[in-house]
């Protein structure tokens, strides 16, 4: 297929709250990916970085920062910032470069160091900034996750036990993932005993922020075949579409949705739009998916994503969960890595970490959390300001 590229190597610095400079995580991830690919650093001719906006100027030019840290060798560089989809946009830039014939082998890398405490907006009186407005009115990040979760309960009959079951499921596989930050197994009782943050969500329903780094070595399919790796997992699709007006779900940091009052305009859910282009581009459907890595900012949000990816009809993700279908060993395992529940979010690295997991799963290298016979995986994530992505990896 002409629009596919090969994934030759994957690498990650373990997630945690290490407090080191983000460059250190990116370099460690890049070196692991290079080793995994068996490619010398000097053979990489394009470096595509996911930017971090929390680490000063070196973070804004992350591609160059990582290239310098690995040793300038004359490669071309790119830096992409797209909130939670930064890694996918960096991957898309590498794919475009490769498919245009501009390079054989590219390094895609993202890393972040998260600050301690709350990420509060700048001070003063600034009602023109939606982020300032919502904090002033007392609306924090968990508010949004909780609104979505409550809607599932009142509309579809999801229960607190369902949300806890997502946490228990993800903690169990995460305990078997050496790169995860949280490796402790939890019970439904543990979740129920944690404090309510934003009803109906408890502390253990909501993901933390983490330090981490993830990297991929990608190449043209011809190059992969030339070095005897023609059977390497392929990137079959990357969707980074924007929402379609009118966005009908209230999204962080806004205090209102778009209005769908104009003639010919419908209220549309962005999350459900994201995978459509990915499926179309890969020429496959949800029935072909063996496993999914989705952005579980909250336990309940994992259930929303399952329906957005059309792995279950709307309102039926909890039934799929209860049947054990989303567990490793079930029909379509979701977050076999342990998900954000076990990693915490490291924004510019997270979308790449999802692709790393699919790569290892499709190669059959995941040990106790291995999804047997996995051949097609899909990722999904959504960030601020109309950024999101969905990537399909297959072999």
């Amino acid at each position: 297929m002409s629009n596919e590229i090969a994934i030759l190597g994957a690498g990650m610095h373990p997630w945690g709250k290490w407090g080191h400079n983000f460059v250190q995580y990116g370099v460690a991830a890049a070196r692991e990916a290079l080793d995994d690919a068996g490619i010398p650093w000097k053979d990489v001719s394009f470096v595509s970085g996911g930017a971090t906006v929390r680490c000063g100027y070196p973070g804004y030019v992350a591609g160059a920062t990582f290239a310098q840290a690995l040793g300038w060798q004359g490669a071309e560089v790119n830096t992409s910032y797209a909130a939670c989809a930064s890694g996918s946009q960096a991957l898309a830039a590498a794919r475009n470069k490769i498919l245009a014939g501009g390079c054989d082998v590219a390094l895609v890398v993202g890393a972040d160091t998260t600050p301690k405490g709350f990420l509060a907006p700048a001070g003063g009186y600034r009602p023109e900034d939606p982020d300032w407005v919502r904090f002033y009115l007392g609306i924090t990040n968990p508010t949004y996750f909780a609104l979505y979760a409550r809607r599932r309960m009142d509309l579809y009959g999801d229960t607190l036990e369902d949300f806890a079951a997502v946490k228990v499921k993800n903690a169990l596989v995460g305990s078997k993932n050496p790169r995860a930050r949280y490796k402790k197994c939890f019970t439904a009782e543990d979740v129920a005993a944690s404090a309510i943050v934003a009803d109906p969500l408890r502390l253990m329903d909501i993901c933390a922020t983490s330090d981490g780094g993830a990297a991929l070595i990608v190449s043209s399919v011809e190059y992969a075949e030339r070095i005897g790796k023609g059977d390497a997992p392929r990137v079959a699709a990357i969707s980074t579409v924007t929402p379609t007006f009118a966005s009908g779900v209230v999204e962080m940091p806004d205090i209102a949705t778009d209005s769908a009052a104009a003639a010919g305009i419908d209220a549309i859910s962005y999350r459900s739009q994201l995978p459509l282009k990915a499926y179309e581009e890969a020429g496959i459907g949800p029935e072909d998916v063996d496993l999914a890595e989705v952005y579980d900012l909250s336990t309940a949000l994992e259930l929303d994503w399952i329906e957005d990816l059309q792995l279950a009809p709307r309102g039926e993700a909890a039934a799929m969960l209860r049947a054990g279908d989303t567990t490793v060993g079930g029909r379509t395992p979701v977050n076999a890595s342990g998900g954000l529940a076990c990693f915490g979010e490291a924004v510019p690295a997270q979308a790449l970490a999802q692709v790393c997991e699919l790569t290892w799963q499709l190669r059959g290298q995941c040990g106790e959390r291995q999804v047997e016979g996995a051949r097609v995986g899909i990722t999904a994530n959504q960030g601020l300001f109309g950024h999101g992505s969905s990537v399909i990896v297959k072999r």
Partner: protein
Amino acid sequence: MSNKPSAPAIEGWFTLDEQPHLIGTRCNACGTYYFPKQDQFCRNPGCDSTEFSEVKLSRTGTLWSYTNACYKPPAPFVAAEPFEPYAIAAVQLEAEQMVVLGQVVEGTGVEALKVGMPMELVLEPLHETDDDVKITWKWQPMSATASEEG
């Protein structure tokens, strides 16, 4: 209770009547509503209008979803001491076909709320400064008002 005068927490975002309304704008060409106000460009991809009129938004709607805040938010939120949890509502406005967030009135917790129930806009204090009491819009279940006014 405070004897300080009241003042809007954000100037020009809502009327100060007994029956308050949020103040938004509406595109003169396509009819898309905006809250907060937008009067420079229309975000409808099929519309390039630059003409907008200020409008009062519907002051009632149906509850799209709800939650609460059990922990004190960071600044610029100004919390009372001790911090009192409050509920938050997302309310769907029929004519405007949009959902607007806001706190729920004091004394109404999540246990009193249900997706789909009718809600109305009221004004209540958000916090106090040295000079005045800042008021903002909040959502209130309609049944509560009906019985009070009954």
